[in-house]
């Protein structure tokens, strides 16, 4: 049987969902694979939910919103774009093909553009093949990576950064100091990597107590760096020393927050 990808679309009500309707009204034909979820704004698309969708086996996720300047809520799509960039960075760390995720702008009058994008994206997913996370036996390493990415996407630090990016870059902080986009991206890159690694460590020590040495080995990470993350995680109440083997402390995960 030929591979029929499962594609989930998150579309804003005002532009892209209307564009999808117009494609139908105009009887423009496109592949059947996409399943559309209507949201009021692309700004509503939470990276955590997109990651959830991928973890649960979507072969592709297509997020669509209004073109810049056309957003029904003025700036929702700007926030969507920023969240999406963070999401892309996280995905890049997980080994899942980045091509499974796409953000596009489609207006209410662009029925044929909608159909073109869906056609093209469906073909792209067909070329990539089934998601390694789909089916009964998802790839375990990748699954853990994706769970770490999801945890990172839910973290306070990344969400604050994404939520404040526009303000910090365009308007500056309370002292009127503006960050350049490059500076911000550097801060963001570091934060994404750190949050991802910490989430990964957390998920690993939740399964079994592990030493810094073992963690650094499994993560392919310099042990000094691994230690630094562990120290930070201890401070945030994410991990604690579970027991000591000889002179080596083994860390365990603590229940966090909600």
């Amino acid at each position, binding site marked *: 049987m030929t591979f029929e990808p499962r594609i*989930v679309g998150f579309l804003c009500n005002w532009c892209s969902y209307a564009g999808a309707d117009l494609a139908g009204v105009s009887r423009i034909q496109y592949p059947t694979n996409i399943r559309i*979820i*209507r*949201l009021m704004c692309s*700004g509503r698309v939470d990276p955590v939910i997109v990651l959830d*969708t991928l973890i649960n086996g979507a072969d592709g996720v297509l997020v669509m919103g209004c073109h810049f300047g*056309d957003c029904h809520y003025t700036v*929702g799509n700007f926030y969507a774009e920023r*969240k999406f960039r963070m999401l892309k960075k996280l995905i890049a760390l997980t080994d899942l093909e980045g091509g499974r995720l796409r953000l596009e702008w489609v207006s209410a009058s662009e029925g044929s553009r909608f159909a073109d994008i869906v056609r093209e994206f469906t073909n792209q997913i067909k070329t990539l093949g089934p998601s390694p996370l789909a089916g009964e036996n998802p790839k375990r390493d990748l699954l853990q990576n994706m769970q770490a990415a999801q945890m990172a996407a839910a973290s*306070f630090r990344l969400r604050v950064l994404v939520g404040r990016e526009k303000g910090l870059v365009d308007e500056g902080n309370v002292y009127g100091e503006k960050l350049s986009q490059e500076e911000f991206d550097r801060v963001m890159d570091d934060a994404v990597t750190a949050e991802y690694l910490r989430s990964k460590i957390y998920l690993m020590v939740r399964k079994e107590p592990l030493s810094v040495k073992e963690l650094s080995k499994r993560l392919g990470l310099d042990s000094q760096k691994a230690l630094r993350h562990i120290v930070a995680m201890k401070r945030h109440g994410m991990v604690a020393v579970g027991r000591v083997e000889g002179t080596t402390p083994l860390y365990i995960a603590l229940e966090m927050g909600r």
Partner: protein
Amino acid sequence: MESKEEAPRIGVFICHCGINIGGVVNVPEVVEYSKTLLGVVYAEDNLYTCSSEGISKIKEGIAKHNLNRVIVASCTPRTHEPLFRAACEEAGVNKYLFEMANIRDQCSWAHMHEPEKATEKAKDLVRMAVAKARLLKPLEEPEIDVAPSALIVGGGVSSMTAALCLANQGFKVHIVEREPELGGMLRHLHKLYPSMEDASQGLSQIVNSVNSNKSIDVLTSTVVKEVKGFIGNFEVTVERMNGETTNFGVGTIIVATGAANFEPVGMYGYGEYDNVITQLQLEQLLKNGRLEKPEKVVMIQCVGAREEKGRTYCSRICCMTALKNAMHIKELSPDTDVYILFRDLQTYGTHHEDWHRRAQDKGIKFIKYVLEKPPQVAQREDGKITINVYHALLGEEVKISSDLLVLSTPLIPQEGAKELSQLLKVPVGPDGFFFEAHVKLRPIDFATDGIYVCGTAHSPKDVAESVSQAFGVASRAAIPMAVKRLRVEAITATVDESVCSGCGTCVKLCPYGAIQKDEKGVAKVTSVVCKGCGTCAASCPERAITMRHFTDEQVRAQALAALGRVYA
């Protein structure tokens, strides 16, 4: 606000939409499938769920099967959700316990040649809707007052017609026109087809009526700077030419900014030879009586219109304008030879074809040209224009020397239309004209409540058509203003105070300023100001914000259902 949780009892109504859905999707199969879904206690198919019979079926279903959730699988919620919601409400089910599955616009119409796959997709879409419906919560809509006043942007005939119509119903109207005087395009026209009355006569009447109407506030040499708020409560800032700004509040907004005439610089010698002019310039000559008795006049139709790329549309008015002006020249100077070079002569409607016949009787010569071989134009030493045209019916080149060449050019979007569209958050289409919510069902509404469009701002039209639309738009805008109080969407964000850390991220990013920190230092949403975009919920660092009707759980349930997984 949330009633006691009771187990979902979902009813699914699947529409054939005549053959629109039923001709592609196997509807009975989808009905049977729906019955197997968790929470579904009843499912049926309807020929047209939106018909009065279909609506009664929903109500009967609710009563008979004690339904507390309703799903209609049919067309798009963008057009039909209000109708089905109303049916639920009448049958005692909170309208926010209704969900739609779009199996026509986004399924049967888009997959007409793949009935099996379309049927599978329709089942998935119903399953997704059911997954969401299980988690839906009843919501209450806050009530707001509607200010009995309207802003009309633009000051042409459409604007003034709508203004008078609203003012005569007792509403206050603000007309904002960027030009120093009212009148718009009509100021530049001579005679109006089909009645051949003077444009200036009708215009001065309506301008006088507007100026003398106490309920109409006319602001000329003024532009709209900023619009905030929502239906019933828009806050408008306008700026006069001298930089002075004024604010006022209105309940509704009408876009009547008109259109501009395309200047065909570089085409057929326009801009190069001074006896190559547009129809609009010809109107001026006729109006001022400055057209001498020329020996010959040639008109070329579809100049810069109905192109392969770019301005692909037909401007609708040019064929009649050319006929009208050609006839008028013949009346003034019967010996003048008038040629109309056309691609297709579109004299649509009940009055216009007669003009075509009369023009032929008067001896006006019609030559069909084709897009592939457009007429070639050059100026002779004596100043006359020579036009070489391939006569598509004779199949040979024809050469005409003319005193005057008149180009029929299309109406194009008004300068600044894009900026205004962004200011009001309403769309323009690919041609740059304002784009309605639905071509048939809501032809003069925007998707945004309380904002409407009429006249040539929407698409090329003649005066009669613009006036009809202006009457239409006035009655549309009058509805919420006459009702005075409106219920606004209950789909708003809400903060879980026990989780909020008071970081203030949402306060900054809300485009409406609907979120403020309260005295306890936690975020609080002002519901009537919240427009329900959900950006705050997707950004909240503590994930403390719930976007009602699009909650994380509901969206996640839909996504997992799309993947054939059961939401846990």
